[in-house]
């Protein structure tokens, strides 16, 4: 119980000067009779300016938004609660700049002022709940992100078990054939090729998983050394030429004439380029083309890998480099969706950047890799 004849005046003074809520009182004609310092600070209007004026003149948005009925109810003795989640605010006021909100988020209580059983006016208390709302929204977003990560992990495990089993099934099948037809040289030759290919596929999958795991645990160290950039690009492209020919895709390259040396991890740099080009080959149909263009700049070099493939829709573009992410329908093209995530992390470890551009589905895609002349180690880890 706050009421005390000896303290009423000082309590009112305190509420006027220090309350962390806005308090406005009106008489029964809804003429403003009280306006505390919080309101002066947050509306920019002094008490002298508003006292004696109609509440709805000072806050015209109350009428525009139909909230004037709450004041009519208050004059009939009813109390109203105004929740931020329904209304966002009682009246439009600026939010504190650090919150980055268009308006201050508010909760409010509107109540009758009763004296000897008769309603003599109204009292409104406005709470700034902006910070709370931001915190709650962050919690919801964090939970959504965790749910998505869980779903991606489930998807990943399903793809992983399938992709690890497929080459094994082939290896096991050929081992059984060998037992029965060991003398058939043609069968053994064909089977050995398939076993080798299947084992290589599986090895690559396992290496991808281990790479990602090392990057996530920030345990991947770069072995930086001076390397000739064109050589690195050529080496990666050469390993993919047979695959391009087999698929009927033309692999162009365009490079500066003069050599330039960069300080990079050559093995990891080749892995980056190999991943980007093999990704382009994967999504480019027979008869298409993939072009690698190398350019030098003052701060580093740029490698663009452009293809005439299936392209990337605008919705997928921001997620391309997220681990375990695969566009709808692309899972059937093989792979765990780790390649581009590994690429981004390896590029960032070198202090470089990578992004993709595409005009949309069926329009091809271009991956733009920018690397510094001296690969500086940056923070590892998955974003």
């Amino acid at each position, binding site marked *: 119980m706050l009421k005390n004849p000896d303290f009423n005046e000082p309590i009112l003074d305190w509420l006027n000067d220090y309350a962390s809520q806005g308090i406005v009182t009106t008489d029964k004609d809804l003429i403003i009779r009280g306006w505390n310092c919080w309101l002066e600070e947050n509306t920019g209007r002094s008490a002298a300016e508003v006292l004696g004026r109609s509440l709805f003149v000072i806050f015209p948005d109350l009428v525009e938004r139909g909230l004037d009925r709450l004041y009519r109810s208050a004059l009939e003795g009813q*109390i109203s*609660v105004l929740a931020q*989640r*329904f209304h966002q605010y009682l009246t439009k006021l600026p939010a504190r700049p650090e919150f980055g909100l268009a308006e201050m988020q508010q909760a409010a209580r509107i109540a009758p002022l*009763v004296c000897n059983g008769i309603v003599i006016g109204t009292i409104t208390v406005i709470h700034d*709940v902006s910070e709370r709302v931001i915190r*709650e929204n962050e919690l919801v977003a964090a939970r959504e992100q965790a749910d998505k990560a869980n779903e991606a992990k489930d998807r990943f495990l399903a793809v992983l078990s399938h992709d690890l089993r497929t080459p094994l099934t082939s290896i096991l099948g050929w081992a059984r054939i060998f037992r029965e037809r060991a003398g058939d040289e043609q069968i053994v030759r064909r089977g050995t090729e398939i076993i080798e290919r299947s084992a290589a596929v599986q090895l690559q999958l396992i290496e991808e998983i281990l790479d990602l795991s090392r990057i996530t645990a920030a345990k991947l160290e770069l072995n930086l050394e001076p390397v000739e950039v064109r050589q690195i690009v050529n080496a990666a492209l050469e390993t993919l030429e047979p695959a391009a020919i087999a698929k009927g895709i033309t692999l162009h390259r365009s490079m500066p004439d003069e050599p330039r040396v960069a300080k990079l991890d050559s093995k990891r740099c080749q892995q980056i380029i190999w991943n980007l080009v093999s990704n382009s080959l994967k999504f480019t149909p027979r008869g298409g083309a993939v072009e690698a263009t190398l350019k030098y700049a003052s701060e580093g070099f740029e490698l663009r890998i452009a293809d005439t493939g299936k392209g990337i829709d605008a919705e997928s573009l921001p997620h391309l480099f997220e681990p375990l992410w695969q566009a709808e329908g692309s899972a059937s093209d093989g792979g765990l969706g780790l390649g581009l995530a590994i690429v981004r992390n390896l590029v960032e470890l070198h202090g470089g950047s990578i992004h993709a551009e595409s005009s949309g589905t069926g329009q091809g895609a271009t991956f733009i890799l920018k690397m510094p002349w001296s690969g500086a180690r940056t923070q590892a880890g998955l974003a």
Partner: protein
Amino acid sequence: MLFTDKQRDSLGELINIAFARTAASLSELSGHRVLLNAPEVDVLAMDELAAVLSRSIKQEVVTVHQIFSGSVSGDALLMFNYEGAVTLTDLLCEYRAPSRRLDTSAQEALTEVGNILLNACLGVFGNLLHVQVSFSMPRLHLESLDQLLRSITIGSEELRYAVVVSTAFSIKESAVSGYMSIVLGVSSLDRLLRAIEDWEET
């Protein structure tokens, strides 16, 4: 309790008027069509109330509680089980992702829902009795059913009764069940029932 079928029907009719007003307010507030059914209205002694509520409220009960006073005084309550309270606020406040929990903003929103409903019901009773009823600030409580019932009965000197209304909020093909209860002393209830009889006759 001496509560005739006719009184029950009339009370139901009055509550339906209040519920229709509430549904209209909630529809406007949420931007969705909200229907509010009051299929069952009953008057129970307080010790019977626990048995009825415990049928659907097993653990925590979320209550919007408003005390009213005047020639009729008592406690007005809107009660949900926890899941029901969360579902209702998520359905009504659709612009953000479902919270799946009752955070402070959701509690505040539910308090406003309760406030609208209880104001509408007590407003109808007030008009009926031609008296002005004063309300306390609505409060939201999260507690066990036992704690809730104890908090209502403590300090009351007279025998208390509860007008209990089973409610169902229907929004976007979902329905959330709850209870509205108006707990009155025997004298207030007697006044209310007599006023209802007068209303029937006019």
